[in-house]
């Protein structure tokens, strides 16, 4: 019975998303559409990074590398797959959707494996050292793509035609994936495993003393986070004419960090808010041209000085709302 209910809810959400997608395509200029897509992609990135930096308390500033792996993986496989699928079931939304999703999954798996490769040796390190080594890995990944001739090297990968990569990303898919990943990570965070991750954040040595398999958990969380970032990368790839290693520089990793800082480190709803905020303001700020990044940096500094816990701290929106407006309720110790 519960399953049926869940299915019904999922279909309803799906229909709503589809409807919004259609409306956007018809009624809103492409420029705004792009921002909406980017907001969704940011949400995925922010929630993915929050799992590591917020919930598990590890510090990664190289996540752009995983996004890149996902993007290239999805683009490469998608471009190869599309003509095959189109021959088989004919060109159209079905083939497009299949190409996109298979591509995304390929990208996610590759990104997850990369996360495993990066996490396994690195997660023994703490704090600053971990941050720096993730930075290093992020750069190494980017430079590898920069030198990969079969992927277009520095000038980027645009698939088979100079007209660019197929534009397969739609509102529906971006937000369907965003919601799916959101639910997945949320369930993980509030599960037994999630509590173990939080324990690692609070006091890793104590957690280990309590027989928590810290390294294994950290690496698993890292891979999941990387895979999610990979999905975001794939969605990003299919809305650009081409993807270039330039798109996945250290700056992008910092963008992700800013998203979760604004929302509040450790808060999933905060990550969502932060992701949307960064996409929207960064794009709107384009009008300010050269002042844009100065203000962005200043904002970051001011946030750290004035309110480092961001908007929601480590609490969830539901908890905050309940505290402010709800009936007095016994709340479990945070």
């Amino acid at each position, binding site marked *: 019975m519960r399953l049926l209910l869940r299915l019904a809810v999922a279909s309803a959400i799906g229909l709503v998303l589809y409807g919004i997608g259609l409306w956007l395509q018809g009624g809103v200029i492409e420029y705004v559409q792009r921002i909406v897509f980017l907001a969704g992609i940011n949400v995925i990135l922010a929630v993915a990074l929050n799992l590591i930096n917020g919930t598990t308390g590890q510090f990664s500033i190289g996540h752009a590398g995983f996004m890149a792996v996902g993007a290239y993986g999805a683009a490469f496989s998608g471009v190869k797959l599309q003509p095959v699928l189109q021959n088989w079931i004919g060109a159209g939304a079905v083939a497009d959707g299949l190409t996109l999703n298979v591509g995304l999954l390929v990208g996610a798996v590759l990104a997850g494996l990369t996360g495993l490769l990066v996490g396994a040796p690195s997660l*023994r390190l703490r704090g600053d050292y971990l941050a720096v080594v993730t930075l290093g*890995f992020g750069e*190494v990944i980017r430079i590898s793509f920069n030198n990969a001739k079969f992927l277009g090297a520095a000038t980027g990968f645009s698939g088979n035609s100079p007209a660019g990569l197929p534009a397969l990303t739609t509102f529906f898919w971006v937000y369907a994936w965003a919601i799916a990943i959101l639910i997945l990570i949320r369930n993980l965070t509030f599960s037994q495993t999630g509590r173990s991750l939080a324990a690692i954040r609070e006091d890793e040595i104590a957690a280990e003393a309590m027989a928590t398999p810290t390294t294994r958990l950290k690496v698993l969380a890292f891979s999941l986070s990387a895979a999610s970032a990979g999905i975001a990368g794939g969605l990003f790839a299919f809305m650009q004419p081409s993807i270039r290693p330039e798109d996945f520089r250290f700056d992008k990793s910092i963008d992700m960090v800013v998203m979760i800082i604004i929302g509040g480190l450790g808060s999933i709803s905060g990550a969502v808010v932060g992701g949307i905020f960064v996409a929207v303001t960064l794009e709107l700020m384009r009008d300010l041209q050269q002042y844009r*990044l100065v203000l962005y*940096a200043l904002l970051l*500094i001011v946030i750290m000085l004035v309110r480092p816990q961001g908007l929601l701290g480590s609490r969830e929106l539901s908890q905050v709302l309940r505290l402010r407006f709800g009936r007095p309720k016994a709340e479990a110790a945070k």
Partner: protein
Amino acid sequence: MSTLLQQLLNGLSLGSIYALIALGYTMVYGILKLINFAHGEVFMIGAYAGYFGASALGVERYGAAGLPLYLAVLVLLFAMAVAALLGVSIELLAYRPVRSAPRLTPLITAIGVSLFLQNAAMLLFSPNPRPYPPILREVRFELGGVIVTNVKLTIFVVAIALMLGLNWFIQRTWTGKAMRAVSTNIDAARLMGVDTDRIIRATFAVGSALAAAGGILFGLDQIIINPLMGVLTGLKAFVAAVLGGIGNIRGAVLGGLLIGLAEQLTSGYLSPDYRDAVTFVILIFILILRPEGLLGVVRPEKV
């Protein structure tokens, strides 16, 4: 053979510049356990300070002959002063308020300051690359097939002089001794009557001044400067500091030279495409195999 020697020479001179910058990173980390991401930008501002200082002194009038020595030294001191001031200001405004916060906060603040300085520089100095003024006259001579310019020699001389000066400062002066004390145990130092805030400021000042010297030397050697020059160079210098053992001054020098050599040799014998990657690969290896660095000391974590 001469090609190898040339590459080695170029590598060592580049490495000396990295060493100068790495010293700043390592000293600040030793004291505050903070990675001063903005240090690369201090290096960049130092280079620009040298540029504007030289222009103010009318370097164009001298043409290719370069400024007379005493003026060149003046430019150097000016840039070092500007950078020291900048470094101290950053500490006061951005790092001090968050000193007691969890480790993440100052790291992000540092990244924010770094981004801010990069983009402010692009606004103020225009993002276009500028040719560095000939503060020194360029003299070339050949030794057995290897071209040595006086710029390269100056880099060595200045770098070594500064490092020796720093060493003397740390070992022989009271402030230097206090710096060592603070870096060993900040609370104990405070208990012993050391004004830790003053020492921290002094550390930033010294580190920044060294970076500025590196900036001028970099400009003379690499011909063009631009507001983003500190990003990659700063990162590589940081890796150098980690390689040598962060918090360890001799380590910073060793690390800088090694990174410079590795970069140049990779570029020359493997491919220039990998020159940046090699630094990061070294970083990864050192952090995984020996996180305390080549000359560092393992500090067990007490629970």
